[in-house]
């Protein structure tokens, strides 16, 4: 997989603006696609090629969704061919949307289902509204979050309050701008981990593997500092910043992906200090994937982007090698990520399972009634 196989998909007003800003932040190198019900908003996107935009639902005349999540979903379901076409050649889809409105909440689940059908890895950023937006929008966002709880590979649910790191003295304009900027900055840094050269380069294949191993919810943080004392300042922001600070969100984390971006003056000790800050915060067995990017234009500054995964299943490489000739008895070989009814054999006959008559057990977005070995992509020699 090449970095060009990664694409950002923005849904709804907020998602499309994020996608547009990401395209600008990466100098157009990061492919983006934007879908909205508001034709005017789509037209205003300066950095997304018009061929990479899509108006959902002609009958709305492109005037927005009016917050009608169900209607947007119905329209999106009727237009999945557009999504499939946009997913051609994509191995990792980064989906971004705001959850409080209608378009993002309605279209995002449809997109994630479509991506799953096509075996495309997904990284989801579903942004929750500011608390000051009121109970109705918060409730709508919570409902939307629930609808994607079992979709997508890695799901991040930052709130605008956390992204803005706002205090009582922050103006509304500042908060809106900072929230948007922090998310765009973090996603751009994340993409650069595999697009730009570095000593500990994050290959696209590694990224895909991480999306599989870390399937579930994740936390996200970004930090940047420059000049003398940049290391301490960046680490302080990474761990203790209001809102996105990892320290108060690290409980229950099972693995981390950390990217360090610096210029030619990036010190070995600085990278080591970043790594140590995670090692001292988590148990010795805590999986830590570290990546670095060298950017001469970043001389003098230090940037860190981090993901904390709440679920983690290391790839069982020994079983994978031994299971090269293995297959599930009676089932055609399935690729990782493909969801099949585990009790249906090659002839289409379904064996009654123990939990057919009861509701599923969902923990962390996963249906635990689905066999663990399937959800962990373990190849079992059942012959």
């Amino acid at each position, binding site marked *: 997989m090449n970095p060009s196989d990664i694409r950002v998909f923005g849904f709804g007003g907020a998602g499309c603006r994020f996608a547009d800003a990401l395209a600008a932040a990466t100098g157009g190198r990061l492919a983006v696609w934007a879908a909205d019900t508001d034709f005017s908003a789509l037209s205003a996107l300066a950095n997304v090629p018009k061929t990479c935009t899509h108006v959902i639902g002609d009958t709305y005349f492109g005037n927005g969704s009016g917050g009608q999540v169900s209607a947007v979903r119905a329209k999106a379901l009727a237009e999945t061919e557009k999504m499939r076409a946009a997913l051609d050649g994509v191995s990792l889809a980064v989906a971004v949307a705001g959850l409080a409105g209608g378009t993002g909440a309605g279209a995002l689940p449809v997109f994630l289902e479509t991506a799953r059908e096509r075996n495309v890895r997904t990284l989801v950023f579903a942004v929750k509204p500011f608390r000051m937006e009121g109970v109705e929008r918060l409730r709508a966002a919570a409902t939307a979050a629930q609808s994607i709880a079992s979709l997508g590979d890695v799901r991040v649910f930052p709130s605008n309050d956390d992204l803005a790191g706002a205090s009582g003295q922050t103006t509304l304009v500042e908060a809106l701008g900072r929230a948007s900027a922090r998310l765009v900055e973090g996603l751009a840094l994340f993409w650069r981990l595999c697009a730009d050269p570095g000593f500990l380069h994050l290959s696209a294949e590694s990224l895909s593997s991480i999306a599989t191993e870390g399937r579930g919810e994740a936390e996200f943080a970004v930090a940047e500092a420059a000049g003398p004392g940049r290391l301490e300042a960046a680490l302080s922001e990474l761990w203790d910043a209001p809102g996105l600070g990892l320290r108060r969100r690290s409980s229950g984390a099972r693995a981390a992906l950390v990217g360090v971006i610096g210029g030619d003056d990036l010190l070995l000790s600085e990278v080591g200090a970043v790594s140590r800050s995670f090692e001292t915060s988590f148990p010795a067995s805590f999986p830590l994937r570290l990546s670095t990017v060298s950017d001469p234009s970043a001389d003098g500054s230090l940037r860190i982007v981090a993901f904390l995964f709440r679920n983690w299943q290391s790839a069982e490489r020994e079983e994978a090698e031994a299971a090269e000739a293995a297959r599930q008895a009676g089932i055609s070989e399935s690729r990782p990520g493909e969801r099949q009814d585990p*009790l249906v054999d090659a002839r289409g006959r379904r064996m009654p399972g*123990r*939990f057919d008559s009861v509701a599923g*057990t969902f923990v962390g977005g996963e249906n635990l009634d689905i066999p663990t*070995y399937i959800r*962990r992509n373990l190849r079992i020699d*059942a012959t």
Partner: protein
Amino acid sequence: MTSDLVSVLEVGTTRTALLAGRAAEGGGIEVAAFAEQETTGMRKGCVAEPDYVARAVRTVRETAETQLRGGEIVDAALVCSLGETSCEPIRGEVPVSGEDGRVDDEDVRRAREALAAEVPSVPGRHVLGDAMSLFFTLDGNNEEVREPRDMSAGKLAMHGMALSVNEDAWDLLCDSVARGGLNVNFELFSGIAAAVGCLSPQKMEDGTLCLCLGGGTTCWCAYRRRHPIAAGAIPVGGDHVTNDLLSAFRPGSALLAGRLKTEFGRADPDAVDPASRIQMPQDVGGTGRTVGERAVAQVIHARLDETLRLVKADLESRGVLPWLGGGVVVAGGGALMPGVDALVSRTFGAPCEHARLNTGIPELDGRPELNAAIWGGLCKAIRNQRREAARNAAGGVKGFFRKLFSQEGEKE
């Protein structure tokens, strides 16, 4: 002189059992009847087919009554987890109003009331047995006090634990039990019952996790300083192992998958020779087939490992893991799986041992993993009966503490 008969009913996903006994002279327990029956109407700890559950309850009741030689069992304490049980610490605090600033009976009574007032009332949730009072603290100190009377303090706080289950599931279970001819007069979380049944007083003091690997649910209770510090349940259990085997190896039915699990299952694939093969259980007339023993163990290990990590995650979130110096004690049918203790030990980083009972009843002591919860339930129910009798004899307010558990940690 013995007390009245006390009965405990355990309705599990795999087994329904009823144990009846009396408080004996000298503080012991005299077991009067024990009956068990396979359960078929439960899934993941909840009632899926009420008729089948009612039938199982009726069967064990009638069998136990036969053992009592004509005695009748009308009421029973109910031991259950109902798939998912959540645990919330609660605290009620009152100013000390006793003379000279010393805690007196009235202060203790008010503290219990304050604790009861803190029991959460969440729509759709039923709190088991109301508040469970655990210990006291004085003036906001962290030091736990078991008997605060006559101690000087400005404020007295009573700490407790509220365990809640899904209300609909609870109502359905009680209805099924009623249709089986029993009235529920006492409610007890199976994780705590198992801990009371198999943890020694020293283990309760040191900090020990009792982990019950049941057929439909996995429940747990951690004890320290002789009272629970964490408890919970998730609707994942041995049935999930069976279902995983059914999916992976297609033995033909869930029944055969269950036999594959019980006859050949192991939780430690690394201990299995990769070349070892086992004969798949089959129905009469079925064609024999072999499968790799290690593959079976891999499927089982994956499920059990995931389940244990979920338990561990809960305990980690509560900050309980560092306090488990006494290790882990496993109970439930899942504890019988070879290799489980090693897996548990590795997951929690603590020594693991199997539950043991010393009731004097061979039917109970012979299978301690399966009977720890029901035995512990009987212990608690009789203890509760003794306390109520003592309060009534002392002229206390009759029934005032009826729905409140007394302080935990005292073992029969």
